[in-house]
């Protein structure tokens, strides 16, 4: 199970780490299982009151952040992000 979750989460663990994490996750999930003790269901109509739609931004053309600023925390080559080769 933890191996599957690690895969979903794009994380890797050594065999030794996996053992420790599995132990901790068992404890954490048994704490989470408390929510199974109550039989209620979610009503989506009650939610989403926190989104304020009556003041949406106008769809106007605006200056973007300059490319060099966007790339200032990345490996930058010719004003592009650099990734390993993805197409053979």
């Amino acid at each position, binding site marked *: 199970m*933890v191996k599957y*979750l*690690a895969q*979903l*989460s*794009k*994380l*890797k*663990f050594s065999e030794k780490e996996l053992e420790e*994490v599995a132990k*901790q*996750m068992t*404890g*954490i*999930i048994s*704490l*989470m*299982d*408390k*929510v*199974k*003790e*109550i039989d*209620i*269901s*979610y*009503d989506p109509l*009650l*939610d989403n009151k*926190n*989104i*304020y*739609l*009556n*003041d*949406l*931004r106008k769809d106007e053309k605006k200056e973007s*952040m300059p490319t060099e*600023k*966007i790339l*200032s*925390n*990345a*490996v930058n080559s010719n004003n592009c*992000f*650099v*990734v*390993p*080769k*993805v197409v053979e």
Partner: protein
Amino acid sequence: MDITTLGLQQTSELLKKKEISSVELTQEYLKRIDEKDGELKSYITVTKDKAIEQAKIAQEKIDNGSATVLTGIPMAIKDNICTENVLTTCASKMLENFIPPYNATVMEKLDAQNIVMLGKTSMDEFAMGGSTQTSAFAKTSNPYNKNCVPGGSSGGSATAVSADLCVASLGSDTGGSIRQPAAFCGVTGIKPTYGRVSRYGLVAFASSLDQIGPIAKSAADCGTILNAICGSDPHDQTCSLNPVPDFNALIGKGVKGLKIALPKEFFDKGIDDEIKQSVMNAAKEYEKMGAELVECSMPSLKFAVPDYYLLACAEAASNLSRYDGIKYGHRSKEGDSYAELVINSRSEGFGDEVKRRILLGNYALSSGYYDAYYAKALAIRQRIRQEYAKIFENCDVILTPTTPTVAYGKNEKITDPVAMYQEDICTVTVNIASLPAISTPCGYNKDNMPIGMSLVGKPFDEQTIISVADAFEQNFKSVKPVL
């Protein structure tokens, strides 16, 4: 008189009367940080040169009469709030070298009033924790006992205020991360109503729960800072359009006739006796001042901790999927394919607690488990909101302890995630229900460690909780830490 012990209002007065210049004041604080923070480790980055530059500009504003109450006030900022051209690490190796190309909205607002930023404070990695011991760079100590934790995740911000290493600070609160460290360090902190303060530029943990707020030496000082940082923002559509009042307007009006509710589950077993006693004594003080105490109940409190962790971790797992090692953040030197590079960057960059929460979040959201965990957590959130609404039908504010225990030893609990999570029992329901709450000191235990109480308000009623906290603070004799 040691100038660094003063609160915001008094410091501002001195600047206005020109009894001290903004540069001199800033230098006093930088000197104290030099002397005391080596051991306390509340700051990750001290922005000395920037602070002096800002102080010079602040002084010009003071001299030409365009200063506000915050002009020239030395403040500390939690290291998950983006500061343009200043390192913002989130206390994670993942963002060890991250220099934001923009300011958070709260920074724009504070800078518009010419505060002086002394530096960026330590925290639990990505704000995930209650001890500041998961910080990759500065495991902060409690000023009252350096062997104890300062709380978290805004532990650096609380310690810096408590130890007079700034006048006030900003923290962020997802499940108690302003109020709990404020309680552990004997200072005052407020988590505003969800939507009061823009989250633009706050590094996201759990977007439906996160909220920025001040930590300061009094409720009034918190109100003054809130006055500056609130308001709608085109960059954050969850930021409320409600008008922003003067948050200190009700201070001094007294608590006569006010109804204060005490939910019995918050005074049950699992809460230290000394803390219960201390909060009950505060309740009696309020009664003497003319308030009426009301009994009430929150039956769903027993589900609050798992409910919070399911919601927060599900959101965190989604939010933290942006860290791929490519756009910004730690990039692994290993990895020949895109997939390998992402996995290696994340595995090297995130610490253990962050990884656990990502795993838990993806568990709750994964096929076959979604309904049993995440959808159920959403349902319990609605139930907790309804229970709060019902309590508020018959009261103005709710009084609870802020924490079940006082600050604990640095080696206790932090290796046991389940024990750590249960420490959040007194604070998480406020975030779940989007409510405002303030924590202020209400006593000290037998070992002289601070005890905090929380006043929870109706949605968008920060004014009342600030004035009720202030009413108590006026007669409370606080004890400074000995450093």
